[in-house]
């Protein structure tokens, strides 16, 4: 046993640890400022200012909110199951962070004789890993909602779970069509294919993108699919009994999920770290890397803005409308897209 520990490539371990630390802190910071951006966007849409008191342009507002959540009183209801009550928000946060592991944030760069990949793990199953983790994310909501011992929380949790399962199906089907074209599950390979070909995947898979996008909205519990937190009918939603930082974790996990799913959409359909109209192979190592990262973040922020735009524009669905859209609208559409793609792929291969 001791020999195998010594045989580890320590530089590799340190590299990955640093990368994980960077990715997690960046996602936390982006999620933090996404809350601020959300309120600013809402302000613009509703013709008012949004937060503008804490610091210039209200830029310190997320810090103030976080501080407030930390200092609030922690309430654990008497009749709740205590461990599960604590486990709920932990799971929500954990699964939100875990998906970031396989996203390629940029190309490869050579530092001190080592080729460093800006990706934590390029695993064989690639995108399926995201599906696995996302399907775990439901438990955060369900366990939290059940452990609160509150009827409204339970109802919201059940809504959340059924919604997530229904939309996961259509999401997977739309992804199958994309994978038929790429022939690989690895996100890195998918990005490299898009860099080397003329067009991004959105050109080949417009319908697939649309289905994937709608399902991503539903998986993140964003409006118009935010039924688990429909305050007009459920008081507040699955996190009704939560207070202090546990509530903060639930709210925060939603924003991290939004950030990560926007990154995944950008990677799958918009070329990932491919800067449009620039030939990366002509740039020097570090410049190419930085343009790549900037391109990915630019695409992601545009997508996050679209998420917010939709939230403040569309009203919420009714529950039966949500299920109708998922099962009778998106799944047949995704199946049609899959068959069409398969037929065209087969025809062009001949």
């Amino acid at each position, binding site marked *: 046993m001791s020999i195998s520990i010594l045989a580890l490539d320590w530089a590799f371990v340190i590299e990955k640890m640093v990368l994980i630390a960077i990715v997690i802190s960046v996602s936390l910071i982006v999620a933090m400022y996404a809350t601020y951006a959300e309120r600013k966007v809402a302000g613009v849409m509703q013709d008012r200012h949004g937060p503008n008191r804490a610091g210039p342009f209200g830029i310190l507002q997320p810090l103030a909110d976080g501080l407030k959540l930390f200092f609030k009183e922690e309430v654990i209801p008497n009749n709740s199951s205590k461990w599960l009550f604590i486990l709920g928000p932990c799971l929500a946060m954990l699964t939100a962070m875990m998906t970031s592991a396989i996203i390629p944030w940029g190309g490869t760069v050579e530092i001190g004789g080592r080729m460093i990949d800006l990706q934590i793990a390029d695993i*064989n*199953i690639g995108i*399926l890993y995201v*599906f696995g983790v996302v*399907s*775990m994310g439901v438990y955060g909501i*369900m366990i939290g909602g059940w452990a609160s011992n509150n009827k409204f929380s339970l109802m919201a949790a059940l809504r959340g779970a059924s919604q997530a*399962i229904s939309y*996961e199906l259509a999401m997977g089907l739309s992804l199958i069509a994309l994978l038929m074209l790429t022939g690989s*599950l690895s996100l890195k390979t998918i990005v490299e294919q898009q860099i080397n070909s003329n067009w991004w995947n959105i050109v080949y898979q417009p319908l697939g993108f649309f289905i994937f996008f709608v399902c991503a909205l539903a998986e993140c519990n964003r409006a118009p699919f935010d039924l688990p937190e429909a305050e007009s009918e459920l008081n507040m939603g699955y996190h009704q009994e939560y207070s202090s930082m546990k509530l903060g974790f639930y709210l925060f996990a939603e924003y991290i999920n939004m950030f990560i799913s926007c990154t995944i959409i950008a990677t799958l359909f918009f070329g990932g770290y491919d800067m449009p109209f620039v030939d990366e192979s002509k740039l020097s190592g570090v410049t190419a890397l930085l343009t790549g990262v900037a391109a990915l973040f630019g695409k992601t922020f545009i997508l996050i803005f679209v998420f917010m735009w939709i939230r403040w524009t569309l009203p919420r669905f009714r529950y039966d409308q949500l299920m109708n859209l998922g099962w009778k609208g998106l799944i047949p559409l995704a199946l049609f897209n899959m068959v069409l793609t398969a037929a065209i792929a087969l025809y062009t291969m001949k």
Partner: protein
Amino acid sequence: MLFWFLTVLALGSALMVVFSKNPVHSILWLIITFFAITGHYILLNAQFLAIVNIIVYAGAIMVLFLFVVMMMNLNEISSPLKNKWLKFAGVISGCSLLLVLIAALKDTDTMQQEVLLNTGKIGLINNLGTVLFSDYVLPFEISSVLFLSAMVGAVVIGKK
């Protein structure tokens, strides 16, 4: 090392599934069991099997279990199994299942082979896909049509 940890975790949480009083806790222990089994798959370098185990069993089927149990609102007081004979029958059938499984696995040639840790390539998605679509194409297609018809059936029932 990791193997023993996962094995203890799997067996321990499987026992907790049976012994915990609260059905919701049973299901959560069962999820942990599935995770331990997934760990075993990863040790065997069967990444695709591992992730499918997570997505399908831990992610979808267990959510439905949890869904039903939460809806039925079973609590710790109402233990459904009060009948002694029922328990007795359960023990007998469980033991006979174990016996059959051991008898079936005793003479297979996997027992004679050494376990290929981290070297077996059959679990990787390329090889698995090739095998599924060449050697086992008929059973694979039949089962996929079955799943599709189940899905269409669910939509049809929902439309009524």
